[in-house]
């Protein structure tokens, strides 16, 4: 316990890592939480022999700066302007010293000084390039090119892409057949369908891959509401979508039947498609494999494709609202027609 003699000013003895000791005015030293704790808990610091051993990072020069800080700020009655001015002068150090000061202040738990110096360091980092920062702080350039980029997962010869392309090709062929049968229907404005045109291609695909699994027809569900909304993107809806209509939905069968009496029945064509199982596609002679895949590879691809389908399924959201297919009609007239204000 430090004995305080009223007529004498109290000092606290501190020892820096190099072994040298010094006495510091009590009120100044106690400004540092770590020193304060040491004094109160262990009673050390009352004499030279019992000097408080300061942490490694508080070297003599660092201690000097810290004590300057404490000596200034522990005085009551200073204005904010004065304090700020002092702080600004204090941190005008070279990078090395500033780092040492930050480090030392941290080990003495002197929060305000840590914040002050940390902010100063942050300002030295902001706006610089990595090279400049390395130079300023003497840091090694030890990141590899790859690490700088993030590990890549792309395989240059991804068989899945090829397979999906094949499946798409197959799908397209089927669609051509349907298109011929439904030639008259392209001009019919069947609103609910517009939003599903894109959906259905992939859903058909999924039907191919996971034959008969009910889950996969989730995406084919018509949207929750069919009523047209008065939205800014209204214009798109009014335009006739170009491209193919894929009519899967039973609701439209009547309409198609009545309009296209000469064409072959849509149900026949649907049946034709539904009968295709994934294996049928894989082994079908129509199926165009440019590269010869051995059976083991095929099996692996089967598994990968199924995995794919599951993933596609999980990323394919339920279509709550749809808008018509984008049409180029209106766009051609002017360069930009703003649909949103915050574009």
């Amino acid at each position: 316990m430090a004995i305080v003699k009223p007529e004498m000013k109290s000092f606290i003895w501190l020892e820096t890592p190099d072994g040298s000791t010094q006495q510091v005015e009590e009120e100044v030293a106690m400004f540092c939480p770590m020193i304060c704790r040491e004094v109160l808990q262990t009673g050390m610091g009352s004499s030279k022999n019992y000097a408080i051993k300061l942490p490694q990072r508080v070297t003599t020069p660092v201690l000097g700066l810290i004590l300057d800080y404490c000596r200034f700020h522990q005085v009551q009655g200073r204005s904010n302007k004065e304090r700020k001015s002092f702080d600004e002068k204090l941190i005008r150090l070279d990078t090395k010293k500033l780092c040492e000061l930050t480090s030392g202040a941290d080990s003495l738990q002197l929060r305000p000084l840590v914040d002050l110096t940390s902010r100063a360091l942050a300002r030295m980092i902001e706006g610089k390039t990595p090279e400049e920062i390395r130079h300023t702080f003497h840091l090694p350039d030890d990141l590899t090119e790859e690490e700088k980029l993030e590990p890549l997962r792309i395989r240059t010869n991804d068989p899945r892409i090829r397979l999906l392309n094949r499946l798409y090709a197959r799908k397209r062929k089927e669609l051509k057949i349907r298109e011929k049968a439904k030639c008259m229907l392209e001009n019919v404005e069947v609103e609910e369908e517009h939003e599903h045109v894109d959906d259905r291609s992939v859903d058909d695909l999924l039907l191919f891959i996971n034959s008969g699994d009910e889950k996969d027809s989730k995406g084919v569900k018509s949207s929750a509401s069919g009523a047209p909304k008065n939205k800014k993107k209204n214009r798109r809806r009014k335009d006739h979508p170009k491209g193919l209509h894929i009519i899967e939905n039973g609701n439209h069968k009547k309409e198609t039947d009545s309009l296209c009496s000469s064409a072959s029945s849509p149900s026949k064509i649907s049946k034709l498609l539904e009968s295709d199982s994934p294996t049928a596609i894989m082994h079908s002679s129509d199926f165009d494999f440019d590269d010869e895949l051995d059976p083991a590879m095929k099996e692996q691809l089967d598994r990968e494709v199924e995995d794919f389908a599951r993933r596609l399924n999980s990323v394919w959201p339920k279509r709550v609202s749809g808008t018509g297919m984008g049409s180029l009609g209106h766009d051609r007239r002017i360069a930009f027609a703003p649909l949103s204000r915050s574009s």
Partner: protein
Amino acid sequence: MGHSFPEEVLEHVFSFITSHKDRNVVSLVCKSWYEIERWCRRSIFIGNCYAVSPKMMIRRFPEVRSVELKGKPHFADFNLVPDGWGGYFYPWISEMSRAYPWLEEIKLKRMVVTDEGLELISKSFKNFKVLILSSCEGFSTDGLAAIAAHCRNLKELDLRESEVEDVSGHWLSHFPETCTSLESLNMACLGSEVSFSALQRLVSRSPNLKTLRLNRTVPLEKLSTLLRRAPQLLQMGTGAYSAEPRSDLYSNLLDAFSKCKNLNELSGFWDVVPSYLPAFYPVCSRLTSLNLSYATIQSPEITKIVTQCPNLQRLWVLDYIEDTGLNALSLSCKELRELRVFPSDPFVVDANVSLTEEGLVAVSQGCRNLQSVLYFCRQMTNSALTTIARNRPNLTCFRLCILEPRAPDYLTLEPLDTGFGAIVEHCKGLERLSLSGLLTDRVFEYIGTRGKKLEMLSIAFAGDSDLGLHHVLSGCESLRKLEIRDCPFGDKALLANVSKLETMRSLWMSSCLVSLGACKLLSQKMPRLNVEVIDERGDLDSMLDAYPVEKLYIYRTVAGPRFDMPSFIRTMAVDQQPNR
């Protein structure tokens, strides 16, 4: 720095470095900084959701509290990106819901969000605070109900310009009576009525509410009720600004506005009845931002408003303001930083609106702090552009949209090359530029040589040949986003600048002359790019290599090709077989 600099202290230093750019730089300094930085990164911005996968993000940054994602290319705002393109939020939320239990903020732009996604947000994050859905779609008010019901500490719900399916206006009632944390609510984009009593109660019990943007269906009569309950508001968006002329209504409104001493931003103003406009005049002197882009009021009214707003920094307005209004603006609003003038009727060739290049010239002269311009008009001259450039070298964003494609300088009938050339020459800090009017390859030469700080460039109906594109790709060092439509740019420029594409976030080209074969070749040369060919016209598989593709979207990615596309979009595989 030395080996003795402790990690926690370095982490503390990093906590004062918040900009994404600087954080990214910090992570590239050295191995130890990379490691420390990734553990203390709290906020992530991903400008292209397909550039990286959710798993990668989570693996690298385990302690994130705020995620910002962008999906569709910018040209989606002009209807050029077909439905079904992608930008799905679900894969992200499905991973984040497991990996980031402490997530507080999600900000999405141009993404497809679903009710399931919103529900997952509402149930996965105990401390969820901020949801911003900008130009998103795919969800309904049911999803909003889930957010309202389960996010106990919700501070911000902002649906700016999203397309929301209105199932029921009662979603607002799902905010529990105990919810008092709301600071910002923007429901301006909703089409149908919300339960007003629920809204009123919500506003009454939200003492920290700073931003409230109503939708069109909230009638003017009810506005004063709300304002009175929230006099602390900073930003307010009115509903329909119309009612039968009634003096009691008017005085109520005037009184309510007068009591809002902190209001500095106003928007909304659908269906304006001009006689009610003076009711908000008490607020004008403090206004820093005013959005009148839905207000179909004429120049005299707009002028009257604007001349009372000396502190105005941002003005969004329709071309009804005309040159006279802009002139008044230039004299009264010396603090103006951003001006956006939207077309009241873009599809009409000769609108009866006297807005010309002179209005913009006036503003460029009078408003010294003007940095950002978006200007739709029907005529322009090189001389005007040069004057604007000389007046305002501090411009950072200049987007000129002359409505008619390939419109020349209407006085000289020359291309507008020299005008835009002057812009890039004088405005040395220009970061964003949109071109329009008649333009030759020359303008691209100017842009390539002078536009060194240019980050985003939008081009439509311009140029003569591949040389134009080549100038841009080879010259603009800071280019991140390039979007092009209806220009005669083909394979050569692209293939000559392949490595440039990896330094950019994305390139969009539609109705140009890039062949399928070039796309394949590009993909082979640059495996870290996704080269997406979008073609709704027919069969991509039987398309010949020589054939020009309809649309093309190229972006760099570390996540490899994506597989969530509709059939009319293909990512060129690196080993694509040629179709001859």
